[in-house]
């Protein structure tokens, strides 16, 4: 018994006094440096940075082009052929950088950059929510008593047992129109997809709670919330970050898919999935209408996947490929 307390005391001497946030910052700094050296991850980050800037400065960019997302330009489409854009490459010109939409003649560049806001915003928002819910549930299950764990674990199983795409489609059908669609999309995607993070966080919390520094913190009288926040949470950063980086592209696909099916963002708000869905009937006369949103979506997804893969490789303790 004495030895246990001594061991705990010794661990307490080296554990809690060193603020965990300092070590977390160190990890993050190292991660950042390594990721920049990793060619694939750096490429991914560069593309993501560009896309985020495009999304943030969408109003500036469209003002530069001198167009907006909703103005109709019937003079730019060939009404005789059913509305194919006039000119080459879907009507690309100095005033319409990526051409115009068939039939309506709305500016494609403007719709693309505003669509980036929806794609990135919904994907990142949903991921943040998933991590918040998942980590809270996971830690509570891992640290709470048997009863709490049993209830929360079953709840997690239930969340994972939902056929997510179908449920999202069904849920989007009954959401009242008064709620902003991008917000509700992020919430629905998050509510259906937090299970994985919760399971991961629970496992991690379960293994961390047996460690000496956690025992030390408990013995020194730290309240449970403080233990969770100061002792357990820092240990979750690495695995959750790795997992969450893969959630972003998954959520982005979910948003695009729901908008593609017509239950996501409603017109006239532009979204890449919705543009693609409209483009499917136009790929013959106007292939640009498919290539523009499809290319943007693919590029962004690839960038996030490259980054996620880089994060995984960098944070994997077994990894020897990348030198520190």
């Amino acid at each position, binding site marked *: 018994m004495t030895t246990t307390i001594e061991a705990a005391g010794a661990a307490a001497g080296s554990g809690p006094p060193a603020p965990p946030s300092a070590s977390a910052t160190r990890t993050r700094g190292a991660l950042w440096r390594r990721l920049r050296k990793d060619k694939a991850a750096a490429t991914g980050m560069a593309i993501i940075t560009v896309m985020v800037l495009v999304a943030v400065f969408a109003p500036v960019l469209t003002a530069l082009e001198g167009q907006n997302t909703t103005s109709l330009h019937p003079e730019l489409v060939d009404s005789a052929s059913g509305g194919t854009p006039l000119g080459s490459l879907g009507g690309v010109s100095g005033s319409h950088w990526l051409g115009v939409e068939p039939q309506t003649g709305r500016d494609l560049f403007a719709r693309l950059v505003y669509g980036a806001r929806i794609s990135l915003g919904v994907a990142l928002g949903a991921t943040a929510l998933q991590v918040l819910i998942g980590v809270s549930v996971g830690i509570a299950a891992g640290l709470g008593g048997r009863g709490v764990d049993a209830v929360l674990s079953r709840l997690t199983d239930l969340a994972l047992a939902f056929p997510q*795409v179908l449920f999202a489609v069904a849920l989007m059908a009954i959401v009242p129109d008064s709620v902003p669609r991008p917000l509700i999309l992020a919430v629905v995607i998050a509510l259906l997809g937090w299970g994985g993070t919760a399971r991961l966080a629970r496992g991690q919390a379960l293994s961390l709670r047996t460690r000496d520094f956690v025992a030390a913190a408990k013995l020194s009288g730290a309240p449970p919330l403080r233990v969770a926040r100061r002792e357990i949470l820092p240990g979750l950063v690495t695995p959750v970050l790795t997992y969450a980086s893969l959630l972003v592209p998954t959520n982005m696909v979910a948003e695009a898919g729901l908008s593609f099916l017509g239950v996501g963002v409603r017109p006239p708000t532009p979204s890449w999935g919705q543009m*693609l869905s409209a483009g499917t009937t136009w790929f013959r006369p106007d292939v640009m209408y498919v290539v523009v949103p499809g290319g943007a979506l693919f590029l962004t997804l690839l960038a996030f996947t490259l980054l996620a893969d880089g994060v995984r490789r960098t944070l994997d303790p077994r990894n020897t490929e990348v030198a520190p």
Partner: protein
Amino acid sequence: MTGYLIRRIVGAAVVLLALSAIVYGLFYAGPSDPALLACGKGCTPDRLAVVKSSMGLDKPLVDQYLSFLHAIFLGHDYSTGPSVQHCAAPCLGYSFETDQPVTTMLGAALPVSASLALGALALSLLLGIGAGLVTVLSRRRWLDRVLNTVILVGYATPVFLVALVLLIVFSADLQWLPFPTYVPLTQDPAAWAQNLLLPWIALALIAAAAYARMTRAQTLETLSEDHVRTARAYGLPERRVITRHVLRGALTPLVTMAAIDLANIMTSAVLTETMFGLPGIGHTLVSAVSSTDLPVIVGVTVTAGGVYVLANAVADILYAAIDPRVELA
């Protein structure tokens, strides 16, 4: 084992029950009024009251849910105005929108979804395990690189993008394959496969990436295990070491993954079905959603949940049966 089986099945049943309660509550207590929807345009208050009572919507929500459960086990009679429709035992409700029991609609849609999922799963297992094994066993670094790139691209590509490209190239431009229309397997197996080939490829290209990655990781791990070293030390030919000792350990987790993926593909192929115009359960749901046909929405989601829960239970049981290391808790 028997005890474990029973516990697992009971657990699955409980999850399914909870799922159905949540779904039912969510949709019937939700913001859209099912009676108003069923009543249609030009609905008078009198007619609304009639529809409400015929659908049982004037009763408390718990009673409604209980009668929903009751109908699943014992069937139910629905009055559709002049006539009374009987909905036989596994009754999931009646679609006033399309004038048929939800079960009939599901009965037509499930074979389509199952055909799609089974073919896609078989193809993706073949491609994925093949690619994963070749890269590990050939020990060529460039192959590894190529596979990694393909896996990343596969992970990053949404299925509707793949479907679209496949349709444009193989159906519209080259005209090698028809634009898919579902032909039942029992009617004409050749036409069944020919029509489903493009959707299978679209789904398999993406799922195969995950299998390839898993096969690669598992095989690498198993190769470094003690029992493999022992087998080698005994002087077994490399071929035998791989087929008898490595593959068994490496591919076990894939069984679990495949069982869950089957349910996953069946229930999440909404986009593939829509792209290729296949009348599966995803397609059924999307059309129900566009007309807010609540009984169909609830029926489809509960059924999909059931398929999912069942697959998870089967996966766990299979895993426990195959892998002797699994402790039955």
